């Protein structure tokens, strides 16, 4: 079977699962899938409140964006006879998943083309031409579509597929060097989920330097005597020169889209608490970890147990932890902005306040974009088993604790800790592997010369 058959098969599987009676699976209320931010049920409540001319943020139910509320809200109230509730929303999520997969495929193709061209300039074309070199874009798209995490997220009525789609749109726009598209994706995804805001660094690097390449130093070592004039113009711009025009364009579009988003938000919450309330209830809610209901992250239990006078301190520590690694990673991986984006997304999905498996689905899809580079990654079997084990154990522990009352919160929290550890190992090992790969290229470069 080819790529397209597998793609349609995955879509069909989603449709079947959506049609499946919800009472049996009841995915929409799983803590792994729907966080307070992405739950469609809460969105429906927010829409109901808005329809009753109460602020959608009144009460502590809805914490998402008002734009998402206006787009998805009307779909939540439409019922079609004989079909499960929220069928239209689920269809939207299926489409978002499909579009995300296509974007991943496109990103993969762009990366492959650029990468093989770069290696050819380094006279390392044999790396690309060998039969071991896999079509990463197709693989990544299929991995994204067939990842059980993606499937349950899509079926389980949470808005994560849309957030993932927006993030991928940002990366695609940046890879294609389309500043307006990148700016749109970045502004909207940061508005919806806040954490994608850190993607500004990889987006700027992508727009400035172009897609992933071997370390830039090698190009200078490769042609130490040749001047810039000898290299074709386009290639030089791609390889070593930072294109300031696209950055300026990007920031121009960012300001345009940001003001649009702010205007639309202001328009939709004007009658209620205004923008101040919206920011407090969305970003404030994310940053202060107000909701302590269990999820697969580690922060909920931590903040349920920590002493009140330490709360602010730890809030700062945990959020600074995300920000703190941005710069070292950007310095070390500046020649691989797409991989940098993957690492950022993975880190934020480990440390964010309300993580769900939808975030993992996204970074696992992006991870498989780098199958060729990460071929020598360590612990891959261990990590795979770990992911499988945690995703089986976590629902069991949740069931024992919440439904049967025989377990204890600590059991569930232990699976969350294990999950966090596996993700950390995955990030660290993939960074290690990519650095090793760079070293390998450097060695090959020096030996060929």
């Amino acid at each position, binding site marked *: 079977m080819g790529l397209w058959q597998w793609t349609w098969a995955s879509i069909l599987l989603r449709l079947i699962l959506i049609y499946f009676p919800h009472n049996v699976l009841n995915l929409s*209320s799983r803590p792994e899938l729907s966080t307070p931010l992405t739950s469609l*049920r809460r969105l*429906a*409540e927010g*829409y*109901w*409140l808005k329809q*009753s001319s*109460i602020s959608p943020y*009144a*009460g*502590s*139910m809805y914490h998402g964006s008002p734009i998402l509320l206006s787009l998805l809200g009307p779909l939540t109230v439409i019922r079609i006879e004989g079909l499960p509730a929220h069928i239209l929303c689920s269809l939207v999520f299926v489409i978002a998943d499909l579009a995300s997969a296509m974007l991943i495929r496109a990103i993969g193709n762009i990366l492959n083309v650029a990468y093989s061209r770069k290696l050819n300039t380094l006279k390392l074309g044999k790396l690309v031409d060998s039969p071991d070199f896999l079509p990463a874009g197709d693989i990544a798209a299929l991995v994204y579509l067939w990842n059980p995490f993606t499937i349950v997220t899509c079926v389980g009525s949470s808005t994560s597929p849309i957030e993932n789609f927006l993030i991928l749109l940002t990366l695609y726009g940046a890879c294609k060097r389309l500043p307006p598209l990148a700016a749109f994706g970045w502004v909207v995804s940061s508005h919806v989920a806040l954490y994608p805001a850190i993607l500004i660094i990889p987006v700027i690097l992508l727009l400035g330097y172009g897609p992933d390449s071997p370390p830039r130093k090698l190009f200078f070592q490769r042609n130490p005597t040749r001047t810039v004039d000898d290299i074709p113009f386009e290639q030089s711009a791609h390889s070593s020169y930072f294109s300031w025009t696209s950055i300026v364009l990007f920031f121009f579009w960012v300001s345009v889209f940001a003001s649009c988003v702010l205007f639309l938000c202001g328009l939709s919450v004007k009658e209620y608490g205004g923008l101040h309330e919206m920011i407090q209830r969305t970003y404030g809610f994310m940053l202060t970890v*107000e*909701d*302590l*209901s*269990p999820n697969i992250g*580690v922060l*909920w*239990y*931590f*903040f*349920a*147990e*920590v*002493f*009140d006078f330490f709360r602010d301190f730890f809030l700062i*520590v*945990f959020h600074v*932890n995300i920000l*703190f*690694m941005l710069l*070292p*990673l950007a310095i*070390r991986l500046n020649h691989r902005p797409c991989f940098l984006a993957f690492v950022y997304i993975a880190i934020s999905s*480990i*440390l964010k306040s309300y993580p769900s498996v939808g975030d993992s689905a996204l970074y696992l899809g992006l991870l498989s974009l780098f199958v060729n580079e990460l071929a020598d990654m360590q612990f891959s079997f261990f990590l795979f088993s770990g992911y499988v084990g945690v995703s089986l154990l976590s629902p069991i522990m949740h069931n024992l*604790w*919440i*439904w049967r*009352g025989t377990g*204890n*919160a*600590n059991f569930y*929290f232990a699976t969350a*800790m294990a999950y*966090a*550890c596996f993700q*950390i*190992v995955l*990030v*660290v090992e993939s*960074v*290690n592997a990519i*650095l*090793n790969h760079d*070293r390998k290229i450097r060695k090959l470069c020096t030996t060929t010369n």
Partner: protein
Amino acid sequence: MALILRFVLVLIALCLATSEEVNNKEEFTEELLLKPLSDRKVLSQFHFRHMLPDELGSHHSLFPKAIFQLVQKFRLRELELSFTQGRWNYERWGGYDPLSSSNAKPPGVELWAVFDVPQHEVDASWKNLTHTLSGLFCASINFLESSTAYSAPEWGSQQSSGKLRYGALPREAVCTENLTPWLKLLPCRDKAGLAALMDRPSIYRGYYHSQRLHLTSSKFGALGSTRGIVLDQTLSLVLQPNKETGTTFSSSSVYQPDWSMSTLYGREVGGKCVLAESSTVYVLLEGGLVSTLKGSWRKEVDEVDNLVIENSWSNPNFELSIPPNKVIEEETTLHKNPSILYVYSVEDSEAFRPFDLEFRWKIPVVWSSPKAPLTSSRFLTGSGNERGAIAISLQSSKRKGFVPTVDVNEERCGLRVDIFQVVPWYVKVYYHTTQLYVDEQPQSLGDFVEKMRVSPSEDKVSPGVMEMILRLPCAVKSAALTIDFDKGFLHIDEYPPDANQGFDIPSAIVSFPDFQTRLDFLVGNSSKKSPMLSKLQESRHIQSYTEVLLVPLTTPDFSMPYNVITITCTVFALYFGSLLNALRRRVAEEERRQREIAAKKTGSFPLLSKFKAKLRGQSWEPPPTESSTSSSIMNKKLIMKVILVAAIAAGWQYYYG
């Protein structure tokens, strides 16, 4: 002449003044109403009323000073505080008479108050009031201070001007420590008068116990005819008479138990409280009972005039040990059977001192109490600690002689039901999931909900309040309202000491404003009207409280904070450290250096130098010459340092360990 005239005028003025004074003096009355209930129990309702007219100002001797200051300080317009234990049985003790709607209160503490202060000061006044009442009545009313515990209903009561606050504590245990301060407000306490009957063991043995304090002040706003402060103290008890004399149990007919004051309370009334204006005891036979009795009268004594016998205190059915001062029959409309009231004035019954009223049944009687148009109950559905649903079910009680009020504008007949429900914030209600079932068929809300006001709960700030006006068809048999909720998770400090017991959701109030009820007893001279009778005469709408719900919430492990903090921080350190290490490492350089060291390999401690190289990372550049000597010197220095640290550690361990 003018002087004499002036003198006369002054005299007349004085006379008028004194006569005014007589009318405006403060009053205290005590009353007790006894009513046999259909399930072999007896309802007794003590009612004490203080009246303080406006003109007296603060010069009063009977009115409790604490309450007066309360009214002055918080500018209360109205206040009701109730302490209740047990649940009023609407099925058997009645749900459609003024007695039941005034007696029935939700379990625990319920407090509502209307303030006469500017809107922005209402919440502050409420907080101070709860603290004051908490001190006055030795109860944890101060828990109502938190904004998560009280709400501001808008339609439920008549005085809806945003100055009403309502709060309930369903779990509050009620006991003598609450009753004693309540009795302290009475001028004779429980030493004399009717309050002397309140023997603590017999009071708290009962099936239902509700102690109330109702305060109306017309000082701050024109309300009612009397200007001043009126304090009503009511204690309702449902007791089971334990003496069962002369009863023969047969399979079909069961005698109602005989009772007397001494068997009910274990005490008797020695006399009236001398400070009381009047001291009256009533025995009320409700309409249903009277009609049953009438039937048996007709059977037994046909020839005797009905009216004479049915009002008599000693008849073939029952007997009262003391002849009543007065027998009053209720003024009713056509459809209802009149109730009968036997009035005893304690001060007039000198001959029967100590006053011990006894009620003896002669024949077995079975009757039923009037019920509310719809019997309401509330329950939880679902299992597990993640989510659930609250269901309010209304069942038609198929009342006879039920006259629905027909809305003039609409052709279809409607039965209006008001529901007021407060839900604490940790029960996260999804209002969009509200579903209405009428006659077990799911219906759209728009068809039956006339009005709905929702103020959703905000985490740790305010409770969720739902007020709903339903208009159900008159022929409705049953209706149910369900709302889904998620259970919240709290910080460990927010759980009460016994967290696994669960959390209480206060009672919802279901009222039927279309149905008014009153008991109108025509008293001869209206000038000396009894407070209790005038209270019964006020027409009030039918209202019932639903059950308190117990919601179990998931608990975290309370003994774990340190473990959780340390383990989580370890994971974060793992993340930070390993990622930074991966970024910082220069494997090529390390390999090169290792090769160099292996080649030189002259030091006496190759392992240590390798370890040191690793410790220092790339910052340490091994000097190309005389490396062996310097490294050996450094090694010696290092060894010395290690020994020093070990010695310090050993010393520390020895002295402080």
